[in-house]
């Protein structure tokens, strides 16, 4: 399926490449801190980490403007951070504290951040897909050139909702990009066990949607694909479908022992760590020194450490908050 020709913007400047690297490092450090907190029992409920998938989060979101909308899923801390969510506010939310972005009532799986046009992480597999498509319908009705992106995992490929929304987006030429972060497992089940058909791309191609598959461990490849898709969307040429092949370094949630994964396969994916790849490229190209990269890590560590301390010290939501905000 070939996309109609829309001029793809020039290659990203070194500053942009470094910015994407910085965002990936922040996500990795953030997720590591959440893992430690969750293992220690400080996080209410289940928490799903995106370590390993930073390139898909960052590569796509770096292609967006502030007016564009995103919808995320249960493994969504990286999307929130890449979209600019405050580190301390997100951490406090995950710990269910009063100072959290949503007052501690949403936790990891339901962070809604409309200030940044983030329609939210979502506890329902595929739940964000129509929200993002709806944002594109809204943009169309308002005469805006805003695009929107829905992120979903490979598990959502088998939700009828995706099929319906792709159909409508194609018919109405909505400015929405369908991004499948294919990490090979829907919860504990391998994609091949539940996903029929000769090609995953065919699921977009059926509707005449330009569909492509990229290396989700390569932030530049993801970014390139996303920029093309967003440019097409803005130009009124309708939806795109991008499958980013990636890997979650952890289990489905913190505490998942991952007995269902093959060790050799896991090691091979680990060796393709998107952050190591990005760091090596930046160094090879002379865009960053080792010291620069170390500074990026220290900066991320400091932000995360401060966020953890603040979140731990923050109060629980006051009891009277329970009944607030059911209605406007």
């Amino acid at each position, binding site marked *: 399926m070939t996309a109609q020709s829309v001029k793809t913007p020039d290659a990203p400047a070194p500053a942009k490449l470094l910015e994407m690297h910085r965002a990936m490092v922040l996500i990795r450090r953030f997720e590591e801190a959440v893992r430690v907190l969750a293992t220690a029992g400080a996080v209410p409920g289940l928490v799903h980490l995106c370590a390993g998938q930073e390139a898909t989060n960052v590569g796509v979101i770096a292609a967006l403007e502030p007016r564009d909308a995103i919808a995320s899923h249960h493994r969504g801390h990286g999307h929130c951070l890449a979209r600019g969510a405050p580190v301390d506010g997100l951490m406090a939310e995950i710990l269910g504290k009063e100072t959290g972005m949503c007052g501690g009532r949403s936790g990891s799986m339901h962070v809604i951040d409309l200030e940044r046009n983030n329609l939210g992480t979502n506890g329902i597999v595929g739940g964000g897909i129509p929200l993002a498509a709806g944002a594109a319908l809204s943009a169309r009705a308002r005469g805006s050139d805003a695009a929107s992106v829905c992120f979903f995992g490979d598990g959502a490929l*088998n*939700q*009828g*909702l*995706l*099929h*319906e929304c*792709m*159909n409508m987006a*194609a*018919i109405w030429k909505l400015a929405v990009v369908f991004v499948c972060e294919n990490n090979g497992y829907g919860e504990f089940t391998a994609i091949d*066990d*539940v*996903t*029929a*058909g*000769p*090609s995953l791309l*065919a*699921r977009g*191609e*059926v*509707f*005449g*949607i330009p569909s492509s598959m990229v290396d989700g461990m390569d932030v530049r490849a993801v970014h390139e694909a996303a920029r093309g898709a967003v440019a097409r969307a803005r130009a009124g040429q309708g939806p795109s479908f991008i499958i980013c092949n990636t890997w979650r370094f952890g289990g489905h949630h913190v505490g998942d022992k991952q007995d269902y994964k093959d060790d050799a396969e896991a090691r091979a994916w680990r060796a393709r760590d998107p952050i190591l790849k990005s760091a090596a490229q930046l160094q090879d190209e002379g865009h960053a020194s080792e010291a620069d990269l170390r500074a990026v890590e220290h900066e991320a560590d400091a932000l995360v450490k401060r966020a953890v301390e603040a979140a731990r010290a923050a109060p629980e939501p006051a009891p009277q908050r329970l009944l607030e905000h059911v209605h406007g």
Partner: protein
Amino acid sequence: MSAHLSQDARWRLFETMLLMRRFEESVAKMNVEKHFTGHYHLYIGQEATGAPAISLLGPKDSLSTTHRNHGHVIARGADPGGALAEIMGRATGLSGGRGGTIHLTDASLGFLSTSGVVGGSISLGVGGAFARKHRKDGSIHLALFGDSALEEGVAFESLNIASLWKLPIVFLCENNSADSWDRSRGGYTTLTHAANDLRSIPGALGIPSRRVDGCDVEDVHEAMAEAVEACRAGKGPMFIEAMTRRWAGSAPLWPELSTGVTDLRMATGEAAIEGEHSAWYAQNDPVLKLARELLGEGAGARERIFAIDAQVTARMQAAERFAIDSPMPAPETALQHVFA
């Protein structure tokens, strides 16, 4: 003309299709005469799809169908009197007057519950096929649905599961979107799908598919025979898209017998083909089309056609009397059958 169908088989199909047609004409008449109210859908124009497809099923096979189900239920051999009585909400109806036209069903003939919700027959059908597979007796399921069912996500989910689990199911999509009225004529939305070719949907999920002329019994029968055989051999699922023309009477929201009571003399040349619907009579009406083909079988065919019609018509007259004379369900039965 290919030799796929025997002469006998073609005559049997003609009788079934004529019964399906006369049944629908009775339904329309009963509605006009106010023996029942409420919305309903007629199967006229699609007989050449349903009749051969269903004729290939055995007694252990199961089926699921849609709001446009009357033809399927009759083709499977349900009693026309009981079916008509059901549509009229009578105590003697196939479901005691509870389901009516949209939920016409006959469990004894292998019909699962008939769904009035678009796409419902597909997911129910996959369940039926799952059960058939576990019986290991070679039985299969036939899921009948319209083109718009593929707009529902549940269709996609069901096709994915059927493909993964290699279920013995034939998905028979009756695409009647051609000739439906556009909005300027007061028609209603038909197929709204970005896919140029509906076969690409099962194709994307690894299900082999074929497109056939749904007005041609030979074409439908051949494709269906191949699909049924594959499913019985454990090579299912299979997908068939049968292309039919939308009968003019089904174009507006409320059906109307716009082409009149079918006059078989239009096939024999004894009645003129004229007026607004002449193209329909001459080319699209599958009952007239098969009658014309049978006339080619030589001496006695004309008489045989009219003899079958007389017998079918008499059967429907009896069915109408039965249904009209049947009582409404007794008030004391109102609370029955919510649970076992």
